[in-house]
């Protein structure tokens, strides 16, 4: 017998359920309990970078918006640096930007919004430049294990065309499922996205 490998096994995932708000966004469940709460606003007035709103919906296989979904986003700052000790890249750290937020969808419309800044391009381990993107994690009733995807930006055409992750997607037609569309509304920059869980437009999800 060879020596045993003594790795532990990851704990199995379970659905976040319909009442995920109680634990993660209690105000949406209808009560106030913590002194400090996490939210969908990632910026302070001192955060560096272009203010943007990310706005979108998650649709089920019938095209109906999920109205009990929770999204988290994780992103680099405007200089392309993550606020984490493992990121030793050259970009300047912004102490006014954690780079993470969470949002529940509206119980009527299913709309999800984040107030953040547009991230800078990042450099991967191989030294390649990666297009600006936001990492997205999706949980809800009926989702047995959190779904990972990304949002890229429609006005970064050249960077998107060269992005090593977008280029991993074999079917060119599926790459556009990750692109959020830029528009301006009342002087604010809005990037709109739709995440399709199923169907011909199914969003690309990653096994990270």
């Amino acid at each position, binding site marked *: 017998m060879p020596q045993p490998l*003594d*790795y*532990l096994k990851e704990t199995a995932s379970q*659905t976040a359920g319909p009442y995920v708000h109680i634990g993660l966004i209690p105000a949406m469940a209808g009560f106030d309990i913590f002194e400090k709460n996490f939210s969908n606003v990632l910026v302070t007035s001192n955060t560096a970078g272009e203010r943007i709103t990310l706005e979108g919906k998650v649709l089920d296989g019938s095209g109906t918006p999920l109205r009990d979904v929770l999204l988290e986003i994780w992103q680099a700052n405007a200089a392309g640096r993550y606020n984490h*000790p493992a990121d030793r890249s050259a970009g300047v750290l912004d102490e006014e930007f954690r780079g993470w937020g969470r949002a529940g969808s509206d119980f009527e419309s299913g709309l999800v919004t984040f107030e953040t800044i547009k991230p800078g391009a990042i450099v991967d381990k191989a030294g390649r430049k990666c297009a600006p993107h936001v990492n997205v*994690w999706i949980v809800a009733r009926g989702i*047995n294990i959190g*779904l990972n995807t990304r949002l890229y930006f429609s006005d970064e055409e050249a960077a998107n065309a060269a992005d090593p992750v977008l280029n991993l997607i074999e079917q060119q037609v599926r790459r556009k499922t990750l692109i959020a569309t830029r528009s301006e509304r009342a002087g604010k920059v809005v990037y709109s996205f739709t995440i399709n869980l199923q169907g011909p437009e199914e969003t690309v999800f990653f*096994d990270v």
Partner: protein
Amino acid sequence: MNAQAPAFSDPRLNRPEPFSPRDGGLFQRDRAIHPPAYAPGYKSSVLRSPRQALLSLENSISEITGPVFGHNDLGPLDNDLIRNYAKDGDPVGERIIVHGRVLDETGRGVPKTLVEFWQANAGGRYRHKKDTYLAPIDPNFGGCGRALTDDTGYYYFRTVKPGPYPWRNFVNSWRPAHIHFSVFGSGFAQRLITQMYFEGDPLIPICPILTTIPDKDALDRLVAPLDLNASTPFDSLAYRFDIVLRGQRSTHFENRPEGN
């Protein structure tokens, strides 16, 4: 010609770092121990499960980093569900302590990571505007809390044992008593939501959500044993629940001062 090292065409060959087998990437997730996205016995999964293959992504800096939390994010009663919503007394129910460690697959404790938890009250009713179960709301129980693990990955909280409750799947489906857990780890790709169950609950083997897990051992690892040694005499029983996140091909990143 000068004596400079040659510039290789592959940019990786020009990297200044020495070779290391520990590049910070995570162990590949073993999908066989997790529930599949499409699990028709849990009916809500049918329209909410992707049907295309997931695209496997070698970990980049976007996946091995994740949000950093500190004690400044929490309040002093956040891990005490018996007191953090009490209005005119203690909540009704069996007083329990839940404790354990957050580890990764290498067996190392995951320090200073955020653990969040939520649950129904002792009667099986959630404090949520969408829950209409006939069991009453407890005026002294919110049903949520959070904790930051210590340097060894240890966490604990105090609560009342949640009750089972009916839900719309089959006409007579009941959830076993459970507590929901949300855990971060140090990289966003370690992010995990799961549920803890209680030793001896007869609803466990017939729960349509629990039985989405294809691996018997993985299911058993979600069941917390009674831990009499950790109980407080004449006060609270205790249950032990360890949580394992994906392993990291890295020693821990140097800890920066937390609580910033």
